[in-house]
């Protein structure tokens, strides 16, 4: 099953989904499920071929023009499997959400088009094909977002992603000018280390930052993910953000870092042997973590909160990849997997809740656990992994990243990373408490019921995988070692159940089993002891007097009000910066319009005279 056949299948099924969608909305969405599952399985088969050592490239091509070549590499396959898996899982949600959208058929078509784009980006060795599909995803994603609430978010999404992809394009052309070909590996290899290499690294990093929604270019991520339709937010944060990670890998790993080693920034960096470019990217990644966490804490809308969380997790990935080395690389790549699974599961859970209640605002929800216990479990597992607590996958990657940061002696960044993980526990807990725990709100009591089986299935698979990546990480780490080997690094030292980091060995299965035993014991105690009596809302008393109105007794909002007040004033620094930038462009345009476009011909004549005068000035 060659790569471009796969891409053509994805495109064809997209068009098929459009026409089927015209007839019957739900059927169109079902086509997306079938197509994405099929593609995921096919990518799975490629796993075996590549393990058999045949990193073949598929340029025996009859359908596409000859310069379009594809190559299956470990790196590409790693990302492709992960993202197609997320696409497949989220596609189960499509049939249930598709009625609400304005253009249902278009939704299913663009869903599969972005899948085709993802395949195109990850599985090619030709930069122009990479850019073609990169833009293609931007273009199809662009028309998906406004299906949700409003289209202002889509514009800022388009602005930042296009800025990113055009930076990528400029880098591609610099490499093309050097090598005369668009080959990805050849281009990066010839350019790395030279002066052009600096521009290429800067531009690729810019593209990665734009796609990941990292600090300087993060304005679009929360707005787009907050406003986009529920299923698409899962795909965006789980899958499409990983494009940025892929470009980050190209920039930070395949290109040799630049800047002399120690004390480049005037002795400021206490880093002992880090290059300037690595240090800058790491600092920006750390700032992304901090700002993402701070912003996430004060959000009222659960989807926006998770959007900020995926922004700060993007920061983690950037920090890990920029440090490089075995720990950095494996930590970064593993974090990509863990974060993808966790954020997809979390978004799907929130999506399930919003399907039933119509809102994701924490102030309007409460006590969903009574009606949706399974969704609650899925969300709980997801946030444990996001917070990086042992049994889940998130812990492994954070453990690796922390070691990488400490090992490189980056104290400042270490502080930021620690702050990020504590903060992540803070803000992921808020939706748990607000949405699921507490008493049931009267207005949702009748409507709320557990999500149907076909929605629960992907959520359960995802949470199963989250646990599995936590308990048995070595399977995934072997594959990551192959990827690192291909990138030229040395893989992690892996026993059958142990991971040896810099300072100590980790037996995740041992921890998990201990943790499991503890949970088991607690569960038994819970079962044996006397059941707590469930009482109605009115059947209590407070300080001696009975209550007469059904008002909530539990407190699930503004947990961290004092913390929020600390940085209330300067919340949207970046947003104001871009607003000012936009206003400058508008004023410039209006000034030119006012000055040049009047109904009097004298302006043109005046400028003609000025230009002729300018030319003839030399004659005097």
């Amino acid at each position, binding site marked *: 099953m060659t790569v471009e056949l796969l891409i053509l299948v994805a495109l064809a099924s997209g068009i098929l989904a459009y026409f089927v969608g015209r007839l019957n909305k739900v059927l169109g969405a079902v086509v997306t499920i079938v197509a994405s599952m099929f593609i995921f399985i096919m990518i799975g088969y490629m796993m075996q071929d590549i393990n058999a050592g045949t990193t073949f490239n598929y340029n025996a091509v009859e359908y596409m023009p000859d310069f379009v070549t594809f190559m299956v590499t470990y790196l590409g396959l790693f990302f492709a499997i992960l993202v197609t898996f997320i696409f497949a899982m989220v596609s189960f949600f499509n049939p249930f959400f598709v009625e609400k959208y304005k253009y249902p058929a278009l939704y299913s078509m663009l869903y599969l088009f972005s899948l085709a784009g993802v395949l195109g980006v990850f599985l090619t060795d030709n930069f122009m094909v990479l850019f073609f599909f990169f833009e293609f995803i931007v273009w199809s994603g662009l028309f998906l977002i406004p299906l949700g609430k409003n289209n202002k978010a889509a514009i800022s999404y388009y602005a930042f992603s296009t800025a990113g992809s055009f930076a990528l394009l400029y880098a591609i052309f610099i490499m093309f000018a050097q090598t005369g070909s668009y080959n990805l590996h050849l281009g990066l290899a010839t350019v790395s280390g030279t002066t052009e290499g600096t521009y290429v690294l800067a531009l690729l990093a810019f593209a990665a930052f734009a796609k990941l929604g990292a600090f300087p270019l993060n304005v679009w991520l929360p707005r787009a993910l907050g406003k986009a339709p529920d299923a698409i937010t899962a795909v965006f944060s789980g899958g499409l953000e990983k494009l940025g990670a892929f470009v980050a890998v190209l920039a930070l790993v395949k290109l040799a870092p630049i800047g002399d080693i120690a004390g480049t920034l005037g002795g400021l960096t206490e880093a002992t042997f880090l290059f300037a470019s690595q240090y800058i990217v790491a600092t920006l990644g750390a700032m992304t973590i901090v700002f993402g966490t701070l912003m996430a804490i004060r959000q009222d809308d659960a989807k926006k909160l998770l959007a900020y969380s995926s922004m700060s997790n993007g920061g983690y990935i950037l920090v890990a990849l920029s440090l490089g080395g075995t720990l950095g690389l494996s930590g970064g790549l593993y974090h990509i997997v863990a974060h993808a699974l966790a954020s997809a599961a979390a978004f799907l859970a929130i999506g399930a809740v919003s399907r039933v209640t119509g809102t994701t605002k924490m102030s309007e929800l409460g006590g969903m656990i009574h009606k949706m216990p399974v969704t609650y479990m899925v969300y709980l597992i997801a946030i444990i992994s996001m917070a990086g607590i042992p049994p889940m996958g998130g812990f492994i990657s954070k453990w690796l990243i922390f070691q990488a940061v400490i090992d490189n002696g980056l104290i400042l960044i270490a502080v930021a990373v620690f702050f990020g993980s504590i903060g992540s526990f803070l803000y992921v807990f808020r939706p748990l408490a607000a949405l699921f725990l507490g008493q049931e709100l009267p207005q949702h009591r009748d409507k709320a019921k557990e999500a149907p089986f076909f929605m629960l299935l992907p959520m359960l698979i995802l949470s199963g995988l989250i646990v599995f990546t936590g308990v048995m990480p070595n399977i995934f780490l072997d594959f990551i070692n192959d990827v690192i080997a291909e990138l030229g690094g040395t893989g992690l030292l892996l026993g059958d159940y142990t991971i040896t980091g810099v300072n100590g060995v980790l037996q995740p299965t041992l921890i998990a089993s201990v943790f499991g035993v503890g949970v088991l014991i607690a569960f038994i105690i819970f079962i044996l002891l006397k059941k707590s009596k469930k009482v109605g809302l009115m059947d209590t008393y407070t300080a001696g007097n009975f209550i007469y109105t059904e008002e909530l007794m539990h407190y699930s909002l503004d947990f961290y009000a004092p913390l929020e007040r600390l940085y209330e004033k300067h919340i949207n620094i970046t947003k104001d910066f871009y607003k000012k930038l936009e206003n400058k462009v508008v004023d410039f345009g209006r000034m030119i319009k006012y000055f040049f476009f009047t*109904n*009097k*011909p*004298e302006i043109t*004549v*005046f400028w003609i*005279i000025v230009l002729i005068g300018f030319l003839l000035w030399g004659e005097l």
Partner: protein
Amino acid sequence: MLQYAAIAMLMLGLYGLLTQRNIIKIIVSINILEIGLNLFIVSVGYVEGGIAPILTSDFNNNGLVFVDPLPSALVLTAIVIGVGTTALGLALAKNIYQKYGTFEIDEMGEE
């Protein structure tokens, strides 16, 4: 000397275009510009002591020193083009007057 006069006329036309806000005055300055231009075209072809490029009974052979005939041919076309545009300009001016009631651009207000 003729060339300097031509350039002066050209500049006068440009000055008119720069300053005048009255439709008719603009058309007049365009005409001055065109006359200056035509004069310049003819002056380019002038040859000291050359005669008009027409064979007549007394200037009868082509060995004589003629003025360059090509610019005068070109000027003939340029003049008529000038007439065409001016006629059109005046027709537009009449239309503008019917619509706005004035020839001053400032009084016409932004449309």
